[in-house]
């Protein structure tokens, strides 16, 4: 039985005209395959390993615990205060590294979204967003330099990625539009900066995947 909302003539027409919506280009098979190979090769080198997810999650719990500990330490309970402070001291170093790793993951995720958006904008020949992208690039550039100087920058592979990103962000922040932007995206494609960036962002639970980082 035909649903009262069905209209075969409309559906036939709609299917026909909807073919023009986001009509795909021919698949660039070789280009995508090369990117997959490059990304997998890089991933083997610079991936933040899965155990890190658990370590970061554990660190988040630990930090919360220390926070609660410090808060309760203000209460008049001397014995529990001493225990809390001792526990905090013994874990400070490990926490510090993990906090920087979390911050690095958040930053990398944000930068990936930014560069993807920038490249899409260049691809669509957008012309009105140059100032906005330059402003965002400057913001991210500041963070990139902070990351380079942080413990996260001690990891040579991550440092190499951060230096690549610094270069791209400097170019975007100083771009005069048009041809500059095309050259930047060409450079990004040649240096595989986006695949490297994606490879460095671990999949995992919310605290690590940086859901909502944007």
């Amino acid at each position, binding site marked *: 039985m035909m649903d009262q909302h069905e209209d075969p003539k409309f559906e036939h027409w*709609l299917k026909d005209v*909807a073919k023009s919506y986001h009509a795909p280009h021919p698949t*660039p098979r070789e280009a995508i395959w090369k990117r997959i190979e490059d990304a997998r090769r890089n991933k083997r080198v610079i991936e933040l390993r899965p155990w890190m997810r658990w370590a970061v999650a554990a660190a988040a719990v630990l930090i919360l615990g220390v926070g609660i500990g410090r808060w309760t330490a203000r209460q008049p309970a001397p014995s529990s205060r001493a225990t809390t402070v001792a526990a905090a001291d013994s874990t400070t170093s490990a926490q510090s590294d993990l906090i920087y790793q979390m911050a690095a993951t958040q930053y990398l995720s944000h930068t990936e979204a930014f560069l993807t958006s920038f*490249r899409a904008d260049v*691809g*669509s020949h957008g012309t009105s967003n140059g100032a906005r992208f330059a402003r965002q690039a400057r913001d991210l550039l500041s963070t990139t330099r902070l990351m380079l100087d942080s413990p996260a920058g001690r990891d040579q592979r991550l440092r190499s990625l951060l230096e690549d990103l610094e270069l791209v962000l400097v170019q975007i922040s100083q771009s005069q539009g048009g041809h500059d932007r095309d050259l930047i995206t060409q450079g990004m494609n040649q240096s595989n900066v986006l695949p490297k960036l994606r490879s460095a962002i671990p999949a995992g639970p919310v605290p690590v995947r940086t859901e909502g980082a944007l």
Partner: protein
Amino acid sequence: MDESQLIARVRAGDSAAERALYDAHVDRVYRLAFRLAGDDALAQDFTQETFIRAFDRLGTFRGDAAFSTWLHTITTTVVLNGLRKVKRFRQREADIDDAHDIGVTQRHAEPDLKARLKQAIDNLPEGYRTVFLMHDVEGYTHEEIGVALGVETGTSKAQLSRARAKLRVALSDFAGEWVT
């Protein structure tokens, strides 16, 4: 060689088999990514990410469903998550731009069918839009869509019906074209 043999060879580390598996499925993955994203660079990104995840997780593929169904589950997850991320980013920036544009009025020409259709499909809720594009444009069955999106087949049918109803209203100015 059938697909299960090909998959076994990929699991054993045969790179030629990886390429063969990629060649067998990449067109459909890229087409779906492009339909949903509407942008070649994003579609390439999503296709790349889909195959990387698929190769990494091939050990978890049990063969209960067809490989293509499993692969399209990964595709839709990658594309929809990726689009949400880009959308949030663009929305935040658009909000800033809107604040700058207060008081500026713009005149738009009457859009043609293609532009109106694009606008109407873009304005569909994400679930309706995805089901509509997969079913009516790319030819997936409701069973395939249900597995890929993790919903019941009936939900897929209902969403398609609602998507068509919304498009019918949005495109009512062009009713003469389908009535004749």
